């Protein structure tokens, strides 16, 4: 879905405002929201891709106005409700009305370091060999979808060049919707600024690279 998360190239957001000596957290609740997102994620009800999709399905005006941790928190509330762990009523009352579904998956403090260190690699055994090779010209697809996708709108229907093969990775468009890994080849694809922005390119010799899954691409 080309929702509020799809920001590349859009106008109207004003200047970037870097903050001098920015703290890691601006308030204690930000750290708690981060911790809740990670510990609740460890319960295994949803994938990282599903959580990204939950964030991009938030109301656009909210998404564009909220702090990023508020986006995380609001999506987390939605995910916990969707997966039957915390109802809207429990949330509103601020109290638990029944036990959790997966207490056996509770992340212990002693496991945090190992879990963070392990991470969640997404490289998988390929099901076939890559269809494109480095140096090849490709055209990106322009298929509108109501679901999750990681092909940004600004790079749809554009001609680019494969600059690297990243490996065979879990396909977010399937994974976000509970359809399993469906691993696909992942490529770095380069587009000239002129291809993306036409006469409005800031500098014709610049380029933009995206990491694009094989189903996003077709032969030029």
């Amino acid at each position, binding site marked *: 879905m080309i929702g509020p*998360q*799809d*920001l*590349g190239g*859009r106008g109207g*957001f004003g*200047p*970037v*405002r*870097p903050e001098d000596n*920015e703290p*890691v*957290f601006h308030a204690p609740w930000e*750290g*708690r929201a*981060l*911790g*809740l997102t990670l*510990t609740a994620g460890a319960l295994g009800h949803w994938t990282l891709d599903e959580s*990204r999709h939950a964030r991009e399905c938030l109301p656009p005006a909210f998404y564009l106005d*909220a*702090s*990023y941790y*508020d986006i995380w*928190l609001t999506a987390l509330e939605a995910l*916990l409700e969707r997966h039957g*762990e*915390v109802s809207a009523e429990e*949330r509103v009352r*601020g*109290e638990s009305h029944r036990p*959790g579904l997966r*207490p056996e998956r*509770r*992340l*212990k*403090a002693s496991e*945090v*370091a190992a*879990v*963070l*260190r*392990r*991470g*969640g690699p*997404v*490289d998988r055994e390929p099901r076939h060999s890559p269809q494109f090779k480095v140096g090849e010209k490709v055209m990106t697809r322009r298929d509108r979808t109501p679901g999750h996708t*990681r092909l*940004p709108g600004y790079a749809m229907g554009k001609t680019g060049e494969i600059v*690297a093969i*990243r490996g065979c*990775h879990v396909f*977010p468009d399937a994974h976000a919707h509970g359809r399993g890994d469906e691993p696909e080849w992942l490529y770095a694809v380069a587009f000239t600024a002129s291809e*993306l*922005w036409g006469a*409005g390119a*800031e500098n014709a010799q*610049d380029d*933009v690279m995206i*990491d694009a899954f094989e189903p996003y691409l077709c032969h030029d």
Partner: protein
Amino acid sequence: MHDDHPHDNALSDIEARVKALETILVDKGLVDPAAIDEIIETYAERVGPKNGAQVVARAWTDPDFAAALREDATTAIASMGFEGRQAEHMEVLWNAPGVHNMVVCTLCSCYPWAVLGLPPVWYKSPPYRSRAVAEPRAVLSEFGVTLPEGTRIRVWDSTAEVRYLVIPERPDGTEGWPSDRLATLVTRDAMIGTGLALAPGA
């Protein structure tokens, strides 16, 4: 009227929401508050841009390490102890005379946590995410960066699980510096590509 920042009552509202959700999840036996403490401490104290600065300084001074980074950045960086969540698949981008790399995630907030820590607010916000791919030079000017005439900018949009680390150019006047001293010149922004490494004495 159109403040970029939440108002005080919005702040207290969100504090209450976070607290309520934590209370509920702890009551349900799903969340260990000490695990949250541990996560906070990890990113507040231990994992941050100092990690990446060590990688960059070593890349500048150790040709074998530089070669290993080119070959398999994930493994090379993990060999320094920086690995795991949001750095599972690393690539390094080498700045050079005439080439400047810059990293963005237009679709969310992808960032190499294990190497740079958590991303700054501006990295996750619409102005940077919307403009970095389309007007990187205007964005750089807001960071006070002007590139030499003729420099080509390559913007990398983190649209999958690959995470990028920019290796800025090593500043002049640092010949013979040891790696740990060089690391003090490597800012977070230099490793995102919205800055350059500091000049000695700057």
